[in-house]
Structures are given as C-alpha cells and as structure tokens.
C-alpha cells in the first residue's frame, strides 16, 4: 500500500512538472492542429477517391482517427528520448539506485504522469479542434468510452515502458542515439500515426501487429471510436496488457543486469 502511494506521488509530480510550462503546451497544440489539418486533407481525399469508404473508414470515422491520434501525440512517447536515458548516460542513475523505490517503476510512473497531464491541455483541445473544424463520428453508447479510456491509459503506459527499455540499453551502449533513431523510425508508422495500420498492405500490417507499437496508439483509438466492440474490444485491450506485462518484465530484468555492469566514472 505504501509503495503504491509513492508511485502515485511520483505520478502527481510528473503532472505538476508538465503544468508549469503553459507556453510549451500552447506551442504543442498549435503544431498538433497544423499536422491534424494536413492529415485530414490527405486522408479524407483518400477516402473520397476510394468511393466513400476505405478499409471500413468513412469521412466521419477517419476524421475521428486523425484527431484522436493527434490528441494522443503529446501523451504517447513516439520519439524515444527520456530523462532516464540522460540519467544513465550522466551516471546520475547511481543515485536513483540508492533510493528506496524501484528505479523502473519510478521512471515510468513519472513519465506516465506527464503523459496523462498532456491529455488536458493538449489532447482534449486537439480533439475539440477536430470536432469543431472538421466534425467527427463517435459512438453513441457509453461502452466504448469506458473501455477506451482504460485502453488509452494502457497505451500511454506501454509507450513509456518501451522507451524505458531504450534508456536501459545505455548501461551497455553508453551512446543510445542509434537505438533512439531506430525506435523513432518505426514507431510512428507502426503505431498508426500518419495512416491507420488497417490501410497497410497485408504483409506490412502483419509486421506491425507483431510489434507493441499498435498497442500505443492504434488499438486505443480503435476501442475509443467503436471500430472494435464487445468481446473483440476486450480482446484488443488484453493484447495491450500482454505487451505491457512483457515490456515491463524485460525492463525489470535489464535493470537488474544493467545495475551490475554500471560503472560511474569520476568521484
């Protein structure tokens, strides 16, 4: 119980940290909206040239996809960098290991806190811009929203747990630029940032589904927009949870192993 309270505090601290830069938040929103309008233009034109429906998307549901994905952009980490990565490179992580909390849990809780806060000033306004400027089709029943909110939470956590994995490779690699770039190059495409994964040709979609990336953004949007419902939706959330468990476990193992190889120079 006590341990949970510590993580809750760290989560709140992450929220606080993010809320102290209002200009940064506004800037993010402007960039989000611009990309959203550009994505809307090309994707709705694609739906139009397919004759009104494309891979099950019509104008309203495609627009919902665009603006929800833009809204999640500030909360889901698609670029791969993190504070933890800096702390491992600088050796500050040695101090983290002395603290009476789990290093992995603390790092992920703080990042998830930042991500959750971003939903308020960045996520919801992005969706609102989409609703007002373009119009979106969303489900009329409460079910998809209840499960969808949970799915979004899991998606955000999967992304930060995955980025934590990149950070701990720094115990061995020191220079983590390469893995970050590698992550960045596939995350956007496979998470379904620019086009829904369901528009991919079969082989590419299969490749995407074999990675945790769709769990970060594509699946939560599918659940939230009611593209998958009922037992299927529960199944999708189950897949997300399985990825989360796997990524967390791997992170735990790597943290323990990395702790033994950690060498901090200087004194």
């Amino acid at each position, binding site marked *: 119980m006590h341990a949970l309270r510590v993580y809750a505090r760290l989560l709140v601290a992450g929220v606080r940290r993010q809320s102290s830069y209002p200009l940064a938040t506004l*800037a993010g929103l*402007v*960039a989000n909206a611009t*990309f959203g309008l550009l994505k809307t233009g090309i994707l709705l034109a694609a739906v139009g040239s*397919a004759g009104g429906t494309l891979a099950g998307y019509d104008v309203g549901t495609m627009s919902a996809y665009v603006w929800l994905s833009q809204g999640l952009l500030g909360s889901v980490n698609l670029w791969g960098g993190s504070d933890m990565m800096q702390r491992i490179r600088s050796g500050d992580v040695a101090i983290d290991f002395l603290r009476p909390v789990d290093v992995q849990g603390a790092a992920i809780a703080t990042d998830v806190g930042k991500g959750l806060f971003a939903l308020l000033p960045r996520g919801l306004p992005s969706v609102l811009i989409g609703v007002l400027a373009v119009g979106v089709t969303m489900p009329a029943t409460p079910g998809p929203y209840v499960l969808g909110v949970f799915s979004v939470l899991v998606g955000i956590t999967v992304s930060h747990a995955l980025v934590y994995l990149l950070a701990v490779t720094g115990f061995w690699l020191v*220079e983590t630029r390469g893995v970050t770039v590698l992550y960045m190059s596939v995350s956007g495409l496979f998470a379904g940032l620019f086009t829904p994964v369901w528009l991919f040709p079969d082989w590419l979609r299969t490749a995407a589904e074999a990675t945790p990336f769709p769990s970060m953004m594509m699946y939560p949007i599918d659940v939230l927009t009611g593209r998958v419902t009922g037992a299927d939706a529960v199944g999708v959330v189950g897949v997300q949870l399985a990825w989360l468990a796997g990524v967390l476990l791997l992170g735990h193992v790597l943290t323990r192993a990395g702790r033994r190889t950690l060498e901090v120079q200087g004194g």
Partner: protein
Amino acid sequence: MADALARLAPYRAVLASRVRSQRSYRANFVLDLVGAVLIGLMEFTEIWVLFHAVDGIGGFTFAQILLVFGIADLTFSLADLVVGHCDSLPTYVRAGTLDVFFLRPQPVLLQLITSDISLRRLARATVGLGALVAGLVINDIAWDARSVALLAIALVCGVVMFASVFVTAAGLQFFLVNGAEMTNAFVYGGRYAATQPASVWPKAVVVVFGFVFPMAFAAYLPVTALLGLPGAPWLPSWLGWCAPLAAAWSVTLALLCWRWGVRHYRGAGG
C-alpha cells in the same frame, strides 16, 4: 576575389573541423547514417501506403506523387543539412552559447549556420534523391530546355525556401524559448505539406502553406507545370514558374524575423 576567399577562410576551417569530428566515432557515425536513411524510408512508406490503398489522391497517381516527394524531401534535407540546427536555437540560448557568438567579429547567423553541420543529414538526402530519380524515370516527361529549366528552378528555390523557413523559426524562437515547438508547425508541418498534393488542402491550409509559407511552390506546383497537370483552386499550375518569387518572399520573411529576434535578444545572463 582573393579578398573574398580570405574572408571565407575561417568558415572553411570551422566546417572542416566539424566534419572531422563526426567521423572520429566510427560506429556511432555509421549507425547515425543508417538511422537517418531509415527515417527517410519510413516517411516515404507512409505516402506509399496511402497511394497503394487507393488509385490516386487529389488528381495525383503514385508515380506523380513520387516526383513531388522526391523534390520536396531532397530540397528539405539539403536545407536541413545547412541550417537545420538553427532550429535548436533555444538550446544555444539556455546554454549561453549564443552570447559567445555575439562577441565575435562575424555575423551571428553565419556563425550559427557553421556551428554544426551534420553529415547524417546528407545520408537523409539520398532518400529524396532516390525518389526524385525514380520519379523522373517512370513519369512521361518531355525532356527539353523548358522542363530542365523548370526542374532546376524548383530544386534551387526549394532549398532556399526550406532554409528560409528554418531561419524564420530561429528568429521567432528568440521570443518563444519555451514554446519552440510552435515553429514545428511550419518547419516540419511545412515539410509534410510540401510532400502532399495541394489539391487536397482546405482553404485555410492553402492560405498558410500556399502563400504565407509557400510550401506548394516547393514541389507541388513545379510538378504540375512539369507534367502538364491541372493545379488546385487558387493554385493554377503556371504558378510553378513563380517559385523564385515565392523563394524571394521566404527569404524576406526569414531575414525580417531573424533581425527582429536578434534585436529582441538581451542575453540569458550568467
């Protein structure tokens, strides 16, 4: 002439040292190059997926958009190579590096440009170059003086326009230190817009990326003129020949923003 060369000497020395320093960590350098190419390929895949799913978008086939993507991506990468790091001005401001630039007897903008040339960005340009060459081969282009001139104009003006956008962003970042992400809207948003057929844009986007930051002039309009395609509402294809005007406007906007920003700058203290 000799005088001009002598004045360039310090810049040449600085640039040569940057190139040497990047090649000294070989493994990381190779990984960096591979990563840069991979990012370019993924951006290309995003467009391919969309045009693979339907026959054509906004009056463009995949072969035709290949040409738009090639010109836009190549010119953006080249501009990024030269001035891309100006985008990290807030980092220089926070670290106080910028204050040092003001003390030296050289223009601040030129110092900023030569402060960091990343070779990985050159690798990134190969993706755009590949797409451009493929686009030129598979499209049915009547090769005469007119089309060669149009292509040359498009490439030169594209680099100038994107470089101007980076400098505009740097100028505005003097005001937006913590809100630097706002300039991403027209720097990276502009790059994204330049790879699209402008015919799919809503009116508001046409105003912003057709005229204020004239991204439609970087690739879309020259390609419509080159292939004899109809343009978009407000953007007729003959405007493809007006890319130099758009480039001149971009440069003006960039220099105004830069001067405005530098005058506003009061140092970070310390």
